[in-house]
């Protein structure tokens, strides 16, 4: 569903991505680990079409992102580290707009209210201006937008960063539900525990290169930590 083929991105003399190849199939949760500046967000930006590769290509559902920027966006939903919404509108109004923008169809408000309730946003908060929301509440609206899109792939850029453990756990549960429904999930994170608990496949990235890739079932928590630290040190 999501595929990067020998993807390289240079910003002048700076190599942000160095021949990265990876793929995420339907129902798979791929967790990409790496320190700040490793190139994780740059990779996501390529899937979103915000950046054009220097060489190589990125594919969504078999279609090249560069030549089909709009088509490929129909198949993906994106949740950034900080879901930014319109502060003067309510959570429900934001959801109504973004989900309609995503699908081209306006969903009934009752359906949207239910979706917000499903991700744990209190009914009272849904009718409040987003300017009064905490980060966690905004993330929940972001998740709802992604769910309402019914996308074939989810792109998440450090989605649990800044969330409390309970919220992060709920979030992992949502990702698992999505993958059970056949959605390909690609998420970047610093959180090894979250990666091990949630992901099927795990990749480790440093300085724009994908250094290691393995199935999460093949390693224990302790092994994973040592693999990660080893790759960070080399």
């Amino acid at each position, binding site marked *: 569903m999501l595929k990067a083929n020998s993807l390289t991105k240079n910003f002048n003399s700076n190599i942000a991505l160095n021949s990265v190849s990876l793929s995420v199939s339907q129902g798979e949760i791929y967790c990409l680990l790496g320190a700040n500046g490793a190139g994780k967000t740059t990779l996501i*930006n390529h899937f*979103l079409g*915000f*950046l054009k590769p220097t060489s190589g290509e990125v594919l969504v559902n078999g279609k090249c992102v560069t030549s089909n*920027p*709009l*088509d490929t*966006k*129909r198949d*993906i*939903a*994106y949740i*950034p580290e*900080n*879901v*930014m*919404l*319109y*502060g*003067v*509108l309510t959570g429900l*109004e934001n959801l109504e*707009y*973004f989900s*309609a*923008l*995503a699908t*081209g169809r*306006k969903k009934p408000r009752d359906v949207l209210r239910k979706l917000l309730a499903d991700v744990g946003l209190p009914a009272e908060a849904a009718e409040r*201006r987003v300017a009064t929301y905490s980060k966690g509440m905004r993330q929940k609206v*972001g998740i709802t*937008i992604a769910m309402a*899109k019914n996308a074939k792939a989810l*792109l998440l850029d450090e989605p649990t960063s800044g969330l409390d453990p309970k919220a992060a756990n709920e979030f992992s549960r949502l990702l698992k539900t999505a993958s059970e429904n056949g959605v390909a999930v690609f998420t970047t994170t610093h959180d090894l525990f979250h990666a091990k608990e949630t992901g099927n496949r795990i990749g480790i990235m440093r300085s724009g290169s994908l250094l290691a890739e393995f199935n999460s079932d093949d390693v224990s928590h302790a092994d994973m930590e040592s693999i990660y630290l080893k790759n960070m040190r080399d």
Partner: protein
Amino acid sequence: MKSFSLILRNEWRIMIADKSLILVCTLLTLLLSYGFFIGLSEAVSRDERVRELVSQQERGQSGIVEQIQRIVSGHEKPDVFANPLNPALVGSGLGSLYAIMHSGALSPLALGQSDLLPDHYRVSTRNKTTFMYQTENESPWNLLTGRFDPVFVLVYLLPLFIFAISYNLLSSEKEQGTLRMQLSHPVTLQTLMFGKLFARLVPVLGVTILAVIVPFLILRGDAVMVSGQLPHLVVAIIIIGAYGFFWFAVTLFVNSFGFSSASNALILVGTWVFLVLVAPVLLNVFVSRMSPAPSRIELATETRLITIDGLNRYHELLSSDYRHIKDSSMLVPSDGKFEVPERLQAFYLINKAVDEKIETLLGDFESRLRAQQDLVERFGFVSPSVLTYEGLVSLAGTGTRRYQDFKQQVNDYHREWKEFFEPRIMSGQIVTVADFEKLPRFTWQEPDVSILLAGSLAKALQIFLATVVLFALGFMRLAKVDVL
């Protein structure tokens, strides 16, 4: 298209929630209404003044007619210096009539030249400089003097309101992080920007146009219909629309570079200063250099010299005795004739000579003023503000061109007036009651409407062309914007 209307409606929702749209629309309506109120007050007071002059004139004329009847029937002795039978006195002031250019139905839209140039002259047998050229000639094109009328609000303030509501179309989305959220969905940056732009353009221009049309239809509707100036109003709206579109295109173009909100604001204000303040002044300087304004001093000096020449030439006539003052029977006609004092004949001849000799000078004056106006119209494209101002004042009937036409018509009327009195003055024919009915009267002939409308539409077209170019450039630039 679906995304476009979705973005449009979402923007309205946001701008209603943060009250920015309501604030801008309310302020714009208030300012335009106040401008209309000022324009209307001016137009009404001008019309009242003209009505008062006409009624004074009618009262004066009937007073003279009655006095003639009393003198002829021997009930009254004529005054030496105000004898209504004397054609030289009647023609040179006693019976003078006003030449009036009536204000147009759309005059509240723009004061234009109306507070600078006269809309009426009291025409007499005296030379033209005595009643037509006492006003300032050095600034015939008094562009954008800051008077508070609807045109001032439209030309000066409308762009600022447009900036206030759209200077950060793209930058605000980038700065608050919602741009990424939106562009992660199947929508292009161009659709997003055009949606956001039209969400502002439609209400702002809608309110502007309504705030111009509605007061006219309510308070001047009859005048507009009766005078057949509905097409003028329609063309005025087209110009206003084009001007509004132009400034929105400017904001889109500036936004398309992807600068920060602060930079956008600075660039837009700089553009406004250049196009609204600097360019018209530069155009004025250019026009003044290419076709220098006629000097009023030159005119005054020339008039004085010609008058002195006349005084010398008609020295003998002017030296005639004053026996008619002592012999009042000379003031009463016999057989429809009486002796017009030679002094008065001399005054008439001096004035006639001044008119004849000054004709070339005044002709040069008028042609230079027309040349200036032609230059303004030819080079008006340097600023849409100039085009809008010129277009709207022309449609309002307060533009330079209409006043120049008025002067031309008054010239012709002056000639007609003199032709009427000259034989009477020179042959000593008295003015009779019947003569008063035959006095030449001035009727203002409105210049060709089709030329005015076509010229105004051409101005709107020039603004539209600039708008289309800016929209196209903005559209192309948006494709290159770094959304990150």
